[in-house]
Structures are given as structure tokens and as C-alpha cells.
């Protein structure tokens, strides 16, 4: 499903070149639930961004579901991402002037993936699935953090992606809510979706299939 080959990423900083990822080789199978753990600044987000096509490797190749995404243009990447990847952010990142349901409909509108009329119905079903159906027509600012993250997860599922990536999805939530959110991801994986979660908290062992530990831009050999 996911295969990274000799992926490196370095940033130009005022202090010189900084290597955020070094020679990463990684294979993740379909339906796997993988946790990428590491300290803050270790390179988790960078890694996830490579897989989502949000960022490009400085060298190496990234293949997702048979597509060599490191070679796609920004626009092609966006289209590809819209259809194949769902992304969940640490700060939820719901659009503030759209209601919960509209936020969920947004990826469908971008990808034109479902008939226009079905989009809202589908959005409501997804919100129901993550247990915030009652809040469908509320604006994000009126929702709690946990509710917002649930909406964000519904949004990530909008186009039935085969891959869901989540970058510290529980980082801004209390532990009870965090547990509930992680369970949602577990459900997703159980239904065949590949899920990759980045987190700096170690207590996700309970839900994940495989743990990849990363530090200083390298994957700890023991963890793979």
C-alpha cells in the first residue's frame, strides 16, 4: 500500500541545511493501523507529509497504492489526495465559516466524487458514524475540541479513502476524548482502511497493529 524508498528530506534554514528525514525505507500493508511515535521534532509530521504528498522528498521515492506521488504536480497531487487520502490534523482545522456537515461535504465538492444530491446525505451519515450527527448544522466554533475532531475525522472519510493519515489527532484533547477518537481510527482500520497516526504519546499501543519509532529523522531498526 505504502512504500518509501530511500526517502530523505532536508530543509534550508538560516543556520544551514537541516535533515529532517534520512534514508527512510518503509512498507505499510493495506488495512494496517500503524503508529509513528517519537519525540517532538523527530520527523513524524515530515514523514506523514511525504506519504500524503503534502511535502516532497529531497531524494528517494514515495509510492502510495501504486502511484509514484513524488513525481506528481501540486495540482495532480491535490486531486489524487482528495480521492485517496484522508487527513486529520492536530488542530482539527475545520473551516470556520462552514457548518460541520458542510466541512464534511467539502472534499466531495472538490473531488466531485458523489452525485451532488447525495453529498449531504452522505455527510450526515458520516457524522452519525462518528457520533456527532446532532451537530451537523453547527459552526465549528460552537463545538468542543473532541466534537471538532470527530467532524474532522468524518471529513477525512468523506471520499472513502483507502488511506487515512492523522498527525497528532489527540494532541489537543483530554485523555477520555482521546481514547474515544483512537477507537474511531481502530474501527476504520478494522473495515480495511490503512491508517497511519503520528503521535508523541506512547499510549497508543492498545489500538495499533504496528509501531514505528522515529528519532532524529531515522526509523529505529528495532521498531519496524
Amino acid at each position, binding site marked *: 500500500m505504502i512504500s518509501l524508498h530511500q526517502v530523505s528530506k532536508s530543509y534550508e534554514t538560516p543556520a544551514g541545511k537541516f535533515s529532517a528525514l534520512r534514508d527512510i525505507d518503509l512498507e505499510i500493508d493495506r488495512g494496517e493501523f500503524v503508529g509513528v511515535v517519537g519525540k517532538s521534532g523527530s520527523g513524524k509530521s515530515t514523514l506523514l507529509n511525504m506519504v500524503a504528498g*503534502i511535502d516532497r522528498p529531497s531524494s528517494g521515492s514515495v509510492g502510495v497504492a501504486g502511484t509514484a506521488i513524488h513525481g506528481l504536480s501540486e495540482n495532480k497531487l*491535490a486531486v489524487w*489526495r482528495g480521492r485517496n487520502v484522508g487527513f486529520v490534523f492536530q488542530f482539527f482545522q475545520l473551516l470556520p465559516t462552514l457548518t460541520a456537515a458542510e466541512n464534511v*461535504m*467539502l472534499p466531495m465538492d*472538490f473531488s466531485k466524487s458523489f452525485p451532488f444530491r447525495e453529498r449531504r446525505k452522505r455527510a450526515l451519515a458520516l457524522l452519525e458514524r462518528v457520533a456527532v450527527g446532532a451537530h451537523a448544522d453547527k459552526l465549528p466554533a460552537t463545538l468542543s475540541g473532541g466534537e471538532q475532531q470527530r467532524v474532522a475525522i468524518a471529513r*477525512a472519510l*468523506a471520499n472513502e479513502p483507502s488511506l487515512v493519515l492523522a498527525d497528532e489527532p489527540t494532541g489537543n484533547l483530554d485523555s477520555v476524548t482521546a481514547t474515544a477518537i483512537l477507537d474511531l481510527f481502530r474501527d476504520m482500520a478494522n473495515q480495511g482502511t490503512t491508517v497511519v497516526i503520528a503521535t508523541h504519546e506512547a499510549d497508543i499501543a492498545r489500538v495499533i497493529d504496528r509501531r514505528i519509532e522515529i528519532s532524529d529523522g531515522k526509523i529505529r531498526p528495532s521498531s519496524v
Partner: protein
Amino acid sequence: MTTLWRKAIRDFWHERARTALVVLAIALGISAFAAVLSSYAILTRELDRGYLATNPASAVIRVDSIDDDLVNAILQNPEVSDAEPRRTISGQLKSGPVQWRNVMLFVVNDYGNIRVSKLVPEKGAWPPATGEILIERDAFQVAKASIGDAVIIKTANGVEQPLVISGSVHDVGQAQARMENIVYGYINLATLAQLGEDPYLNQLNILVAENRFDKDHIRRVVADVEEVIKSRGHEVRRTDIPTPGKHPHSDLTGILLLAMSSFGLFVLVLSGILVINLLTAMMASQVRQIGVMKAIGGTRWQIARIYFGQALFLGIAAVIVSVPLGILGSRALCRYMAMFLNFDINSFAVPLWVYLLVAVIGVAAPLIAAAYPVWSGTRAPVRVALSDFGLSQTTFGASAFDRALTRIGGTFSLIAFAIRNSFRRRARLALTLLTLAAGGLFFLSALNVRASMINTLDQLFGARKFDLTVSFVNSYEMEKIQRAINNTQGISKAEGWFATEASLEARRFNVVALPPDSQLQEFDIIEGRSLAPGDTDTIVVNNALASREPKMRAGETVMLRMGNAETTWRVVGVAREAFSPAVAYIPHSGMVNNLRLALDKSDPDAVSLVKADLDRNLEQEGVRARSSVSTADTRFAFDQHMLMIYVFLIVMSSIIGGVGGLGLMTTMSLNVFERRREMGVMRALGATPRIIWLMIVAEGVVIGVLSWTIAAILAWPISKAIGDFMVKIMFKSGLDFVFEPVGLLIWIAVSIGLSAAASFLPAWRASRVTVREALAYE
């Protein structure tokens, strides 16, 4: 409706006050443009329709006299569809006890059968009976009389004949009587006889049969007609061929409207700047949202469409607001122009193409303005948009300029802080300053152009030391006239001049012969020298003639034809005379045909008294005055024309000032919006709402003062250019430029007031935000 459109609309609704400001500003621009454009469409249509409806003469031929045989002979020519005899004779009209006014009498034989250059009866009698006169509707104010009044008319022969004003007519083809300061009167042949004139007609209004708009064709036909006239023993005195199908003022109208429409476009461009500011700020504040949208599958174009959609909305809303405004504006403008040109507007209907053009431009302008901000705002790659790195928020303090700014004021003060703050968004500041400064520039220009026009006229009229000009029908010996002058009270100085025409290679211009040591006329010599006592064959030309005739340079010798004689003249100098037609001045000797008088008192009543007294005394000497014009009346006519330019510039500067004010308001509200967090911090550190409020108003005022500085620096060259341009259009002449310093004072007051007012609302809103709200804002 997809979620994308909903986002576009809701984001705008979320900031509705600011959105409304920008819509209003664009609407102002479009309204100005729409008003001028529809006026152009209405006026050109109505002016030409009204003028063509009178069946204007293709040519006017003046002959010695006309009889039926001559008319019939001319009509033999199949190329001539009509030839109508008329007569135009100048005279004077008196409605009150003393005041004589110049009158142009149009004599028509058969009012029931006018086919060429038609008159439109308005009120009262039609046709005028013998002993009656009709007055052009615009001339009643000049005549100071109304229908039913008896007025005294006299022509050059001196017979004073009372006539009753029995009605009014509209003569579309004449320039506005008030502007020309002359009365147009219409009488029949029998009335002409009552005035002591031989009752004959001497002017043929010719209408060609085909190709009525082809001047060359008209010229050929007229040449044939002239041959016929000559072959029958008549004399052709003068032939005039007006531009076919064009009202005499239609060019001027077109140029004026052109100038105005370029102004309308300019305002539109300025309001486009607001769109740039608004969208640049929106794009900056939505980077993260844009990043998220890209992350969940939005392409750059899909996302850009949201913001283009907003620009589209701005344009459509503005067009909707401005169509009625523009129509109202165009009505006012059309009425004003119609009054100026003395014609009627039958229909204010605005043609469809105007609506379409306004809609297209109104919708396109914000879209074009949005292009750069939207395209560059959607450029950031997802990673950059989402990361806490990357996106370099403009950091203050990086450049030497910033550090220089921090030195202003030395210790911390509100003003120093406000100055620093206003420089944080350079591009936005520059664009805001541009609109505000433009308003200031037009205002200062209006005052400067006005002052310069007054100055120029003062110079022109200052050189004329006479208060009154009396023209005679014939030429007389000065002794005769001197006796009349001696018998008249209130004349301090008098000179007899001689005015005629001359031609150089068949191009005509005026010649004025005056005493070489004239005390009543001074020359502003710009080349060579003035006339001097003892000169005989010397000539001084004014700048209008010098620029028309390259041969007329100091030191050159020219052959001029005057009457039937060709004579040689030495050009000794060129004199500057603003707003004048081409004139050559030569030393006077012999007979005089006009009189220049300096009076003891030059108020209108004193001038009228002298006029009346002198007329009587001249008559006793057997001298017939054709017209007398006071210099003050001439000046009045000039001032009327100048007023138009001035009013136009003032209207312009207030509209641009309005756009500038709205722009500043938008800028301030954006500045405040972006700095909410910072203000929260300041509040947390103990700043009172009052301080926050003052700080923001001070920032607005700093921008206002900056814009004033720019306007003040540019005002001189720009107002000179504008003044020269407008005066060149209207008078083909230059300006004696002066700078009006009071304008600077007024405008700094307006700038401070406007900028304080524009930042008042944003400042008030900012000062009300609580610390918690401000810090929580994301």
C-alpha cells in the same frame, strides 16, 4: 450550491461591514463611469437629433440682395434641395430706461414655411406679426424682459422703434445666448422696414439634396451655386459651411465628456485598489484554511475560484448599487449640459449597450484587481501553509528603514508608535496613500486651476485699460467722435481704433489698428518689441496668430491682403494674449470704426449711464453705434466658461476623496483585524480601551498626513498639467499658473478630518474587544 460558494458568501457576510465599504467604493467608481457614459450616449443622440430635426443649412451664403428669380435659378440645380432667404442684422435692444444690449435680429419672410434651419415655437405668438418680435428662449435673461413687454430696438441706422415681445422660440443651432451675452430676436420683413431698414433679404440658407454629411460634396455644390449667383449679376460676400450634421458645440461636448469618462475610469481603478487591499488581507488571513483545503483535495484553481467568486460578488453588488446612481448622475449631468448648450432632451433613455458595458466593466474590474492577490495567495504549497515555519509573516525590524523609523520620537510616544504601525504593511499603505493622495491632488488642482484661470484673466483684462468698447457701423473721422466724447460725462480717456480683417495666403484673422503709444492697451511682449510711436508698417501679432502662422515671427516681413489691397508689413513682436483668437496689431492712422473708453467709474450702472449718454451724443454727430460692450460683460462670459472646469474638478476631487476615505477605512479595519492578538496583549499589559482607540486613530491620521504630503509635493506639476490640458481643450490657450497656498491648509484639515473619521469605527470596534476574545482569536 456547493460548499465552496457557501464559504465565499459566508466569509463575506462574516465581515459584512468591510465588504459593504468595498462595495460602496467600487459602486462610486462605477456610478461615475456609468453617469458619464450614459450622458455621452444621451447627449450625442439628443444633440444631433435635435439639431438635425431643424434641417440645418448645409451652407450659408451672404449676397447683396435676394429676389425670387435668384432663388428659383438656384433651385434649378438638382443638387440643391432647398434655398431659403433670410437676413441677419445686428442692433441693440433696450428693455429698461438705460441699458442697451446687443441683439442679433433674424429676419424671415414667411414664418409659415421655414424649411431650413427651423425654429421651434415655444410660447406666445407664432408667427410674429408686424411690430412684434420673438425672442430666443435662452435670451430672455439677457434681454431682461418677458413676453408681452415692449422693447426698443435700433439698428445701425439709429431709428429707435418699440416692438412687442409676442413669444419665444427655440433656435437649436445658436450658441447659448447667456454665454454669448447677446439677445437673439426674430422678426418679419415688414417689421424690418419699421426699423428703418430696407426690407430685403441677403442671406441664403442652402440645403444640398444628397450626401448631406459630405463636406467636400457640399463645397462643390456651393461653388456651383456661387457661379449662378455671380452670373446673375449678384455679389457673393461671404460663404460659411458648418461641419455637416454637427451641432456647433458638439465637439466641445464630446471632448468634455471624454475628459469626464477618463476620470470615471480613474475612479474605477482607484476602487480596484481597495479590492486588492481587501483580498490581499483576506488571502493572508486564510493561508491556513487554504492549506487545509489543498490537503483535503482542493486544487489551486478550485480554491482560487472561491475568492474570485467573492470578487465577482463585489462587482455584481456594486453594479446593482451603481446603475440607479449612475442614471441619476447622468440625468443631472445631461440637464446641465443641455442648459449649457440650449437644447431639449426628449428622452433620457439609456441605450442597452451602456448598461452592458457598465455591467461588464463593473464586474470585470474587481475580478482583474483580484487576480494578483488571489493567484499569489493560493500559491503557497500545502506544507508551507500548514506549518508553523515557512510563511514569513512580514516581520518589522528587518530593514534599515524600520530601524530608522524606531528612532523617530526617541522615547516611546503614541505618535511614534502610530507611525511605526502604519508602516507595517507597506504595500497596503502605498495603495491607500495612492487613493487618498489622488483625492488631494484633484482638490489642490481644482483650486490651483481656478486661481490660475483667474490670474490669467486678470492678466488679460489687466492689459485692457478700457471699460467700454463701442463699435460703429461705418468709419468716421476722430474729430467728430471726439466732440461726442467731450459732451459725455464720466469718460476719463478715449481712443479711436480701427478693426478689420486681413488674410495671409487666404487664411483670415483679425487686425486691430491702435495708437502705437496706446494708453488703453498694454502688450505682454514675449518676442521682439511692442509698437512704438513713429511706426508705420510694423505689426505685432498675438501668440494665437504666431502659433498658427509660422511666418509671423519677429523680424520677418509678410504680405497681407486687406480688402483688395496687398501690403507688406514688418513683424516686430509677438504678444501673449490668453484666450484670444488670432489678432494682428498695427499702428493706427486715419479713420476709426470703434472706440475704447476708460471711465471714471466702472460699476455696471455707471457704465450703462455713460453708454446711453454717449449714444445720444454720437447720434447728434450723425455717428451710428452698432454695439457697445463693457469689458466687465466680456469678463463675465469668460468666467462662466471657467466655472465649468472648476466645478468639474471639485466634483471629481470629492468623489475621489470619498473613495480614498472608504479605502482608508478598509485599510484601518484590516490593520486592526490583523493585530487583534497584539491588542489583547497590550490590554493585558494594562492599556485602557481609550489608549487602544487613540493609537488606531493616530495611525489613521498619520496615513492622512502622509497622503497630504504626497499630494502637496505633486500638486504643482499635476495641477499645471491639468489646467493647461483643460484650457487647451476649451480655449486653445495656456494658463498663467499660480499656486493657491490656502488649498494646502484646507486639504490638511480635510485629510486629518477624513482619516480620523475613517479610523474612528475600526478603532472603536478594536477598543471594545475584550482581552480574552483578542487572545483567543485564531
